[in-house]
């Protein structure tokens, strides 16, 4: 199975093609993108880091759980690591199913559970510093370059 993670752009169309078939009448796609504003602050870009082997296993388990619950659904998920410019996709989930109830439900379940459980971290890069989301005390001043070096590859190898 392909990795659920990529250091570059997420190819959403390829992800859709990987699950679409003429047995499935419904395809629900969720794409999360990097927003310009976060709680009133101007964001310059996002940066993602993962505990890669654990995160791969987590996403695979979440997709397997969705397929157990909606057996006719085909599901694919991809998350970006490293720098993510504004407007570009940080995560994409596609669920194809015979009918739209299953497609919507499976897609929603996977994105909700990946966000809640997978060991992935998002850093917001502001004009005046950086901060890890969910860890307010992590703010470091110094602008866009402050966190360079560490985590530049966006993830950890095994």
């Amino acid at each position, binding site marked *: 199975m392909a990795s659920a993670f990529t250091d570059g752009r997420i190819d959403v169309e390829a992800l859709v093609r990987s699950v679409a078939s003429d047995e499935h009448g419904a395809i629900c796609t969720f794409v999360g993108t990097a927003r310009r504003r976060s709680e009133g602050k101007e964001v310059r870009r996002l940066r993602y880091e993962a505990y890669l082997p654990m995160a791969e296993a987590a996403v695979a388990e979440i997709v397997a759980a969705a397929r157990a619950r909606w057996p006719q659904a085909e599901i694919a998920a991809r998350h970006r690591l490293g720098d993510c410019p504004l407007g570009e996709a940080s*995560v994409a989930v596609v669920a194809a199913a015979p009918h739209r109830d299953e497609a919507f439900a499976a897609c929603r379940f996977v994105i909700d559970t990946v966000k809640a459980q997978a*060991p992935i*971290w998002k850093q917001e890069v502001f004009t005046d510093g950086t901060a890890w989301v969910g860890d307010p005390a*992590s703010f*470091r001043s110094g602008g866009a370059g402050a*966190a360079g070096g*560490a*985590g530049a590859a966006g993830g950890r190898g095994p």
Partner: protein
Amino acid sequence: MLLFAGLRERAGRDELVLDGLPAGATVEQAIAQARGIVPGLDSVAFAVARNRRLLPAANGRREALAEGDELALLPPVSGG
């Protein structure tokens, strides 16, 4: 012990080598040692993974470590 995100930045590195833990030391003992190394470790509520599985919040930290265990400290996740 692997560190991520804000914890990695606070420590200035992504891995700690914990020396001198006694045989049969618990996860909590390893964390106590990390407290001496990572400034502000408790400023964020972190979870602990042992061999890439999340430890139960209830009493997972009382488990005894085994040779070669991979421990990781995970700040609140924020993927997506």
